[in-house]
């Protein structure tokens, strides 16, 4: 017999430091939050590490949540910020991104609808760190280049160029995938 709580009830319980409510909030939201972490991570292991840190931060900071915007949105932002922090800690790995001849690829001939969520996730994870962050923040979270440049400590121009490179690489990869899919269909 498990009574289901609304996310607001769970949030209030967490504000009171109730361990049971913390666990229930985790159980109810972890899969969505892990999907967020996955987009920002190279692989599942990194994503789960970042999920742990993110939840610890959520429980520590829950008293600061003032109710502007949905609580789930607030949690997502914590997860994104956690990912950004760990990226900035390892910032050395950035800027050594091999730039393929991505621009020259024609953005035609692929069928998006065949690609499932996991495929897209995989594509994003395979991007180099800087591209992955910018693409996620701009295309999915909806941050502006100005916000991204402030959060990542880069220039707006860098944010823009990384975004377009990220798109180009993604398109290129999708075409490759489509080719394989097509081959498996026919073959």
């Amino acid at each position, binding site marked *: 017999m498990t009574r289901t709580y609304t996310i607001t009830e769970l949030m209030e319980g967490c504000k009171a*430091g109730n361990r049971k409510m*913390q666990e229930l909030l985790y159980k109810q939201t972890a899969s969505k939050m892990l999907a967020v972490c*996955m987009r920002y991570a190279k692989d599942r292991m990194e994503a789960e590490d970042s999920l742990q840190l993110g939840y610890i931060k959520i429980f520590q900071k829950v008293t600061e949540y003032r109710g502007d915007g949905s609580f789930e949105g607030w949690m997502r932002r914590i997860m994104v910020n956690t990912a950004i922090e760990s990226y900035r800690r390892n910032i050395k790995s950035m800027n050594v991104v091999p730039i393929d001849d991505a621009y020259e690829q024609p*953005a035609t001939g692929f069928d*998006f609808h065949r690609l499932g*969520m996991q495929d897209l996730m995989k594509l994003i994870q395979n991007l180099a760190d800087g591209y992955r962050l910018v693409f996620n923040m701009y295309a*999915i979270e909806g941050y502006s280049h100005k916000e991204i440049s402030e959060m990542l400590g880069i220039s707006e121009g860098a944010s823009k160029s990384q975004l377009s490179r990220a798109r180009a690489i993604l*398109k290129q990869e999708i075409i490759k995938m489509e080719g394989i899919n097509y081959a498996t269909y026919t073959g």
Partner: protein
Amino acid sequence: MQHIPDNEFDRLFKDRLMDAEVQPANDLWERIAPQLSTKKKRNMSIYWSAAATVLIALSAGLLFKPQEKIALHAAQESVPAKVPAAAGNSGVPAEKHVHAKAQVSSTALQAVSEEQGDNSPSPVEKHYAASKNLIVEEKSLVAMQPVEEDDHHIIKVTEEPAATITTEIETAMTETALANNIKPVNTEPEVSEAMNEAAEVEQQSRPRIRNAGDIVNFVVDKLDKREQKFVEFRTDDDEGTSLVAINIGPLKINQRRSR
């Protein structure tokens, strides 16, 4: 799907990934939970210790405001007499004695008052008190003389009360002597010997709480059984408020370790 615009391309990702769900490993909560408990508890205990320390120190400071220290060897160094406790029994209004700036050893008076307040003082203390009274008598003669600076006219006005004090003290002394079956001692050597002896005994038998620092140390000693207390004050100086040691988990300060 031909030449897709950037915003549409982004949208395709957003639509499929925004509300995506990925099941985390089953034991992930078990990895998060312990990190929550330890952090929280530890923080709390530090805050509580700090708050308790401040509270204790403050309340002790309010209760035990710095008092005039009673010098054990005050027989030699005279101080202006406060209201003599001995006069309390005499029926003479106390104010008069306040004005009398008789140079009487306050320790001696203290001793007399203790004598009267206490029903069973140790023999040594009694002896001490009795011998002190002799000093008082001698000193009170000095009190008849004008004392320094601006006390002149007060002295004139209060010569009579000063004389009364002497009488009071004499009476008290006699009472004490009678009560103790000890005859007044007249010779100097004996007096000082008795005083030294008394002083020693007193130093050992007196409770060691003399100021706010002692209070804090006492309370901390009851609460914290470690060798290095979470807070310790030096109490053998005049103020009794010098912080010498702190031991709150990671924070350890120790200015002195010889007690």
